[in-house]
């Protein structure tokens, strides 16, 4: 492989320019690139109902008495909550939620057992990451039954009266990031990622196969072009298309669905660059493998399905079985969803989204490398 030292900026520019002209002349594709986002945004603006269990929970257990633990068992028995760690302070709790490590933080206050037995009705605080309200909704609604049933076995004899009508303690649920629990808030930023995935992979998926089918490949290969120039040159114009789509969706999301933009737009645009490139690289990789445009399309669909199903777009990520989560972690969309929701709904900064950037970047590099090695410089 000696393509790197011969990389020519002039040829690279030539290919970009050519792709731009062709894109401009291909009205239908151009209209589709702008039409798809608009159409999908309107169609998918609805919530999809699911009932995830076993959501990750961190616990702040300040109570030394026995009742705090009993309550936690009751939580666990609902099957909605899986305890991950025990934390020591509220700050740690916030941090865990902010990072997206857990969906809930449950705090049991100091002297909970004592206050409860005294009949003071102590309060348990449940903080929820409500950016994905579908994920948290069912879990939260299961809590109402907990109030009276949780301590039935503990409070017997003289204490039985505490199990009265309103229960022996109070639950205070505190949905963070999306306090009104609006599903559109969650779906719309996700849709941004989904639309970019679909259009970007599809457009470049056709890039090389189209040259082959139209016979122009013979000419392109007879000239001293290098794989990297051709592949990156074909990707570059579509980065702009990606940004146009992104902007279109953001504007609609904000003004039509009222999705808040809490974090930095600049940061979102910067992160989107990596994501757009990753999808384009995947498309161009398919393009070098596929024999014809139809095959390239089929390969694209092969990625759309897992992207939509396993990324946390349709189904809450934490609610999926572990193997599905493992597959999901590989997909760029999974990470971009966290970034987009994080920035728009939680106001995340660079430190929170950085861990989501590198898996996308790695994906892009791998896809492009495979594409370059697979790019055939001959016709046979």
């Amino acid at each position, binding site marked *: 492989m000696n393509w790197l030292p011969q990389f020519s900026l002039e040829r690279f520019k030539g290919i970009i320019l*050519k792709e731009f002209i062709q894109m401009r002349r*291909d009205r239908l594709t151009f209209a589709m690139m702008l039409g798809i986002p608009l159409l999908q945004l309107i169609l998918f603006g609805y919530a999809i109902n699911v009932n995830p269990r076993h959501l990750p929970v961190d616990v702040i257990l300040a109570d030394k008495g026995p009742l705090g633990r009993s309550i936690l068992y009751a939580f666990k028995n609902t099957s909605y909550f899986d305890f991950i760690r025990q934390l020591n302070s509220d700050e740690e709790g916030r941090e865990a939620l902010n990072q997206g490590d857990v969906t809930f933080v449950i705090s049991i206050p100091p002297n909970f057992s004592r206050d409860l037995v005294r009949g003071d009705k102590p309060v348990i605080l449940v903080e929820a990451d409500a950016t994905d309200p579908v994920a948290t909704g069912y879990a939260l609604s299961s809590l109402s039954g907990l109030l009276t049933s949780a301590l039935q076995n503990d409070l017997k004899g003289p204490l039985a009266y505490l199990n009265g009508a309103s229960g022996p303690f109070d639950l205070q649920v505190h949905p963070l990031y999306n306090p009104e629990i609006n599903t559109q808030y969650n779906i719309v930023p996700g849709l941004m990622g989904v639309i970019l995935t679909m259009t970007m992979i599809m457009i470049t998926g056709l890039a090389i196969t189209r040259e082959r089918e139209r016979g122009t490949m013979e000419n392109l290969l007879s*000239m001293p072009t290098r794989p990297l120039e051709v592949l990156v040159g074909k990707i570059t114009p579509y980065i702009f298309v990606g940004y146009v789509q992104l902007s279109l969706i953001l504007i609609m999301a904000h003004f039509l669905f009222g999705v808040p933009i809490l974090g930095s737009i600049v940061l979102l645009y910067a992160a989107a660059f990596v994501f757009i490139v990753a999808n384009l690289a995947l498309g161009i990789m398919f393009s070098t493998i596929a024999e014809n445009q139809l095959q390239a399309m089929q390969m694209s669909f092969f990625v759309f399905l897992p992207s939509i199903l396993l990324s946390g777009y349709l189904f809450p990520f934490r609610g999926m079985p572990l193997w599905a989560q493992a597959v999901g972690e590989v997909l760029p969309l999974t990470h971009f969803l966290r970034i987009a929701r994080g920035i728009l709904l939680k106001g995340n900064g660079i430190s929170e989204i950085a861990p989501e950037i590198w898996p996308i970047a790695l994906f892009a590099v791998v896809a492009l490398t495979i594409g370059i090695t697979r790019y055939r410089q001959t016709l*046979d």
Partner: protein
Amino acid sequence: MADDFAIDVKGMTKRFDKRTVVNNIDLQVRPGEIYGFLGPNGSGKTTFIRMLCGLLRADAGSGTCLGYDVIKESALIKTQVGYMTQRFSFYEDLSVTENLDFVARMYGMKDRAQAVQKSIEQLGLSRSEKQLAGELSGGWKQRMALAACLIHQPKLLLLDEPTAGVDPKARRDFWEQIQLLAAKGLTFLVTTHYMDEAERCHRLAYISYGDLLIHGTVAEVIAHAGLTTWSVHGPDLIQLAEKLRQKPGVEQAVIFGSKLHVSGADSAALEQAIAPFRAGPQQWEKVPSGLEEVFIHLMEKSTAQDSS
């Protein structure tokens, strides 16, 4: 000596799924030469040319093209070769100028705008420079393709049926252009199915089903074929031709306008066959064989061998 030849290759072989399409071909082309490459459809001409410029990997063979190793240095060969594909392979959704500009960029030309302008004028494309390449007529597409192949001032041109579908005037212009460039030292390898074009070549090679059967100047090729031809002039040539074709020793009996050409490889057998007809009302005259008779003779010989 590699520098003595623009193309100097030995034993070039290409197989597609075990079927040998180019079989052990040796070829030497001198700089400044117009070399004609002829042969029936599917004989492997395009395949051979593609191997020369690195578009197909040869299964066997070695040699040089413009002094570069034809197997290992195809990246370098590409910078100095202009390859005109048999099928139009420029971007149909780009205009003539845009296509030429693209090609100029691919070769990293310095004074690009000027080179594009010059080649547009040279090939008389000025009127259609803004037109989309896909909307050009067949002949104009060929002109544009030739312009594009020449833009980076290559030393060697590989032209695969450059004049297919081009009108006679344009064809003549085209060949004048080629001859002018050859005089300046450019080398041409041209495939064609036209005999008049073959006759304009300095040297020829005839390839049939992968084998190079014959090569040399037009005169050498004709002499080598050892064909005898009689020209017949007079009435009732159609009936005469019909009768002659039945006779052993007569390979071809073809009417050209008012003349009938009768040829055969075995001159004794041919003379025996025509003897009964020479007393007829027609005039008989022995003439030198033309290229067309030679090629048809070669084609029939190789198909006969193939089927045996």
